[in-house]
């Protein structure tokens, strides 16, 4: 089965035999992973944890050194994670810090992949990586649009999917799923709610 093919995620020699927990998924400490060792060597305590989950490498990094780690991953010796696949965030209001930035990296030469995560406080701002990968531009804009996370150094940080002037950031957990911004719609688009006794029959009276 190729589902957890080690070739694509973490190299096979670096992947210890997983203990399958009952009902859970295999999460193991990435102890002898080449990449993780290198990162730990270089950044020390800034690497909070490194695990291999479902065959995928996940490295949690302190937010302050996030940009440095990513720069190193992109252009550091031998690593060359030149393809930034995704930038997104997860909102966990119960935890501190409540937001988690997630970067999915891939190398087009070695085909290795790694996921870099970093916790970030609400209202704090992260370093933009647009200078490292151009693709981060829109991805960070979307992240800002959906979560309200500010990326410092972004050349053009404004909403991308939602219109300018929209209130709130929809992917935050406190934002309700069924929510109609009637006032915004009425003000901006000049569409007003129908009265309760509105006729939906579609028939035209002459």
């Amino acid at each position, binding site marked *: 089965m190729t589902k957890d093919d080690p070739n694509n995620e973490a190299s096979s020699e670096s992947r210890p035999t997983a203990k399958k927990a009952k009902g859970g998924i295999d999460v193991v400490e990435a102890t002898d992973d080449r990449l993780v060792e290198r990162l730990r060597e270089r950044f020390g305590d800034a690497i909070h944890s490194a695990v291999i989950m479902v065959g995928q490498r996940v490295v949690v990094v302190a937010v302050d050194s996030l940009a440095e780690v990513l720069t190193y991953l992109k252009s550091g010796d031998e690593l060359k994670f030149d393809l930034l696949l995704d930038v997104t965030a997860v909102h966990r209001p119960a935890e501190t810090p409540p937001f988690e930035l997630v970067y999915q990296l891939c190398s087009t030469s070695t085909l290795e992949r790694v996921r870099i995560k970093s916790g970030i406080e609400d209202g704090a701002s992260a370093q933009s990586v647009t200078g490292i990968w151009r693709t981060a531009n829109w991805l960070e804009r979307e992240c800002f649009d959906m979560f309200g996370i500010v990326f410092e150094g972004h050349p053009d940080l404004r909403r991308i999917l939602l219109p300018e002037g929209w209130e709130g950031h929809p992917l935050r957990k406190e934002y309700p799923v069924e929510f109609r911004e009637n006032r915004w719609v009425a003000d901006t688009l000049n569409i007003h709610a129908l009265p309760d006794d509105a006729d*939906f029959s*579609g028939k035209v009276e002459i």
Partner: protein
Amino acid sequence: MSERRSIGSVLSRLLLVDLFKGLAVTLRYNARALVEARDGADPTQAIYTAQYPKERPLVGERWRGAPKLNNDPRTGESLCIACNICALVCPVDVISVGQANREVRDGEKRKKKKVLTTFEFDTSRCMFCGLCQEQCPTLCLELTQEFELAVESRAGLVWDREMLEKGIHVVTYKK
């Protein structure tokens, strides 16, 4: 800029050979269209058109079209047991099931049973994913092969129990 040109390539460029190749393809289609049979939607023929609505397409057996509530063919009673699973599983909440506890007589015994009172299906928002039909434990709710769902008013898009049991009337045309 020194590049090699063969006489052949120069001639073919001057004589517009590349354009004529394409023109030959379309001319062949045009000529075939005049002589070949036109059975409709046959990919090997020159003309592919099926003349809907005069030729009614046969949709697949598994087609997910207009919803229908099936009745038990022996008793004529609804197969629905008002379990509400279809409403729960619907991603866009188009189904609302009305239910009531009624006393029913089963031979000598009397017992309480949950029965269906109303059933509303909003086809205007339905995305015909078929999850309701898959989850229905009694094969009552079914998405039929009927695909002409247009009506004249928005209100007509919300189907009540009667419409769902009867099915919609479809006008058929002759060729």
